[in-house]
């Protein structure tokens, strides 16, 4: 415990017998401890803030953008499946294109709007997004033209040209969406690979922390040797406060990282896979139906009327089931929850960090002030 009262300074045998040297040492130690404590707290806040921004960029923007691109792709494939099936079955004549088709077109537009809002993959992606939006309008116009031609004549052959033109547009939209997805994956990998999420930068605050701890040890050593103070309650408070700051910071960063990794490697991957499987099934079924329609109208001797259609490979090809849709929704919800938890962990109570840092700095200053004052008064 710190003994009350004034104790005359006793220079060590190996130190020059100049009281001002010890005072200067104490003042420097005080300055270094205060600055180091503040730096540790500041870096903790900076690292937390950057990790929070990284979590938002990867989990809150890049990953959802990729999900929206996958969803737009899936909705497009389903729209094509529903439309082509309607023409092949002849339901378009009386039933029109149907609610499912209209819902798919609405879903494409909604997903594209959300994708535009995230805007994570730079100007090239923005440009691609505008292309897709324009192409979807053109695609829908061709499908509606095909429906009108079919309803007017009741003959699939009359509807086939516009349906084929829509298919050519569909292919271009799919190719552009593929490009968007590639850009989205690259953007996500880039965000995940940022120094604040993947590197050791998030441990930056530990460097001043360790240095300051060493300075605390040195200070304690000086106090014990020069002033015979075995324990300084203020110094101990400062060490404890600073250690709490570091622990708090490390724990929240670790929790944030764990939640984000878990969300991105688990439900996110599952949601992407499910969306891709659904889109693939819809595209396959649309291709089979279109091939059947063209084969019905064009003899094989004309190479299917100049189209590049080839007989589809046998395989399971059914549209997305309600169960698939449920699983996809569940995976997306789990992913969103994981990102929310990661976000909350990285931005948890910054005021606590600020308070602990200030306590550490103030306690460090307080611990050395009486000893420095002794020199000041002693010098008078």
């Amino acid at each position, binding site marked *: 415990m710190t003994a009350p009262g004034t104790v005359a300074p006793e220079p060590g045998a190996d130190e020059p017998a100049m009281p001002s040297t010890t005072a200067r040492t104490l003042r420097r130690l005080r300055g270094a401890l205060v600055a180091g404590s503040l730096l540790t707290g500041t870096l903790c806040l900076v690292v937390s803030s950057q990790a929070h921004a990284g979590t938002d960029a990867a989990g809150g923007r890049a990953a959802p953008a990729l999900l929206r691109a996958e969803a737009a792709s899936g909705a497009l494939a389903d729209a094509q499946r529903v439309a082509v099936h309607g023409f092949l079955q002849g339901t378009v004549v009386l039933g029109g294109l149907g609610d499912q088709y209209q819902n798919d077109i609405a879903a494409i537009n909604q997903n594209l709007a959300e994708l535009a809002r995230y805007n994570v993959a730079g100007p090239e992606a923005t440009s691609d997004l505008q292309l897709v939006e*324009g192409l979807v309008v053109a695609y829908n116009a061709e499908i509606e033209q095909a429906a009108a031609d079919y309803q007017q004549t009741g003959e699939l052959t009359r509807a086939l040209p516009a349906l084929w033109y829509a298919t050519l547009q569909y292919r271009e939209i799919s190719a552009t969406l593929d490009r968007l997805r590639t850009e989205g994956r690259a953007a996500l990998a880039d965000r995940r690979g940022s120094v604040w999420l993947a590197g050791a930068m998030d441990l930056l605050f530990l460097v001043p922390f360790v240095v300051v701890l060493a300075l605390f040890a040195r200070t304690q050593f000086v106090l014990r040797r020069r002033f015979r103070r075995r324990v300084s309650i203020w110094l101990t408070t400062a060490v404890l406060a600073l250690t709490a700051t570091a622990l708090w910071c490390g724990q929240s960063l670790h929790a944030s990282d764990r939640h984000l990794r878990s969300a991105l490697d688990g439900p996110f991957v599952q949601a992407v896979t499910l969306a891709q499987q659904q889109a693939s099934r819809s595209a396959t079924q649309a291709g089979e139906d279109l091939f059947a329609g063209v084969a019905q109208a064009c003899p094989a001797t004309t190479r299917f009327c100049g189209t590049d259609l080839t007989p589809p490979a046998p395989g399971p090809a059914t549209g997305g089931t309600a169960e698939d849709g449920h699983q996809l929704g569940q995976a997306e919800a789990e992913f969103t929850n994981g990102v929310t938890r990661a976000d909350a962990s990285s931005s948890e109570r910054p005021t606590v960090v600020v308070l602990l840092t200030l306590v550490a700095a103030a306690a460090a200053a307080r611990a050395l002030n009486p000893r420095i004052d002794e020199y000041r008064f002693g010098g008078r």
Partner: protein
Amino acid sequence: MRQKRQAALRLLLVLTLLAASASCLGGSSDRRVLTILTPWTAGAEKESFQAVIDAFEAGNPDITVHASPTRALDQVLRAGVQKGEEPDLAVVANPGALRSYAQQHALVPLDGFQNKALGSELVELLKSDYDPQWYRLGEAGTGRPYAVVVKASVKSLIWYNRRQLATQPLDSWADLVGVGRSVVQRGGTPWCLAMADPPNSGWPGTDWIEDILLHQAGAGTYTAWVDGRLKWTSPQVSAAWQAWGRTVTAQDAIHGGPLTALLTSYGEGAYPLFTAPPGCYLWHGALVTPDPEVRPEPVSGKDYDFVPFPDLQPTATATPTANPTYEVSGDLVAMFRDSPEAEKFMAFLASRTAQEIWPKHQPEAAFSANRTVTQMLSRNAPDSIARRINGLLASPATLCFDASDSMPSTMAAAFNHAVLDYLNDPGRLPTILTGLDKVQADAYPQPAQSSVCPSSSSGQEAK
């Protein structure tokens, strides 16, 4: 000890600076990116335009030009303009669309550049090196220059299989009809036809009808029709449709039949011309593209050749033209967002350097509207197909711009669709033409006076 403490303090300072600088990672580059919307989604056209861009970037290393190709150029551009998210530059689909954007004040006129000197220089170049009709094409009837023609095409060409038809006369319409009949008698199909090119499918058919009307009824009638002063149900226009119908809707007249023509992509439409035995012998249009997988690769002038579209037996009301007439088209680039970089790129596109690039990449399909380039290319490689087509452009001919490109966009879209309808059911021609008359009545709110067939010619100007 003192030195160690100082080192520790320095370390803390360095760490602080590191943390501060790390938080500022990812600063922006000074390189300016220009976006240009184009219709060239694949193949030689895309590569050729990229070569033009590469040449510009080589001379302007601080500028990157990002081309966004799309089939649905018109839809994408219209949506972008409406949302205020237009590209820096765009290839405008036709003079009608150019006029429409100019009237909406969405375009930057070439004489309104921020860099006045560059703008004046560009307009002077367009007046001195380009024929007046190409300059007026960039004005689109607005009185101010808005666009630069980056590529010109000659549409009045009939391509044929030279190995099979070398000995046949093909100089007149009657010759072509005769060749068609003899091919059918031999069990073949004379013509290839391909209409699919969404979202403007049907335009190859409109080119056919325009060419027939131009060469049957004359440039005056053609202009009146483009301007909406001649009805679709008029004898002249109706006769052009019927002449085309006799050519392509007769039994065995086209490869694969009408449905194949409707479903085949325009870019692949001429492939059967090069198969063995040939799937067809004749092809109409600005360019002929052999299947890249065909071996040995067809040789121009040896395996295939062209004749200019011949005159037809004139109708009673035809307005004769002294010079030969050819239908041509031009791809127009206009500026939607003004910036020093965009102005530089526009000026570069009009320059001789840029205008030479595309014809060198696609010598038989792409031509320059720049007279000095055309004259230079027409002197190169004597007897080549490219030289002969350049010769047509440089001759004292009347060049008429593509009619559907010059019509209001609603009219052009209806024309495209009417062609598809007609191929599906030729018996509906009277209904189709009546329907087009109705569209015409709405599509021309004011009487138009276009310069679609200007009387001046490059040859005369050059002389």
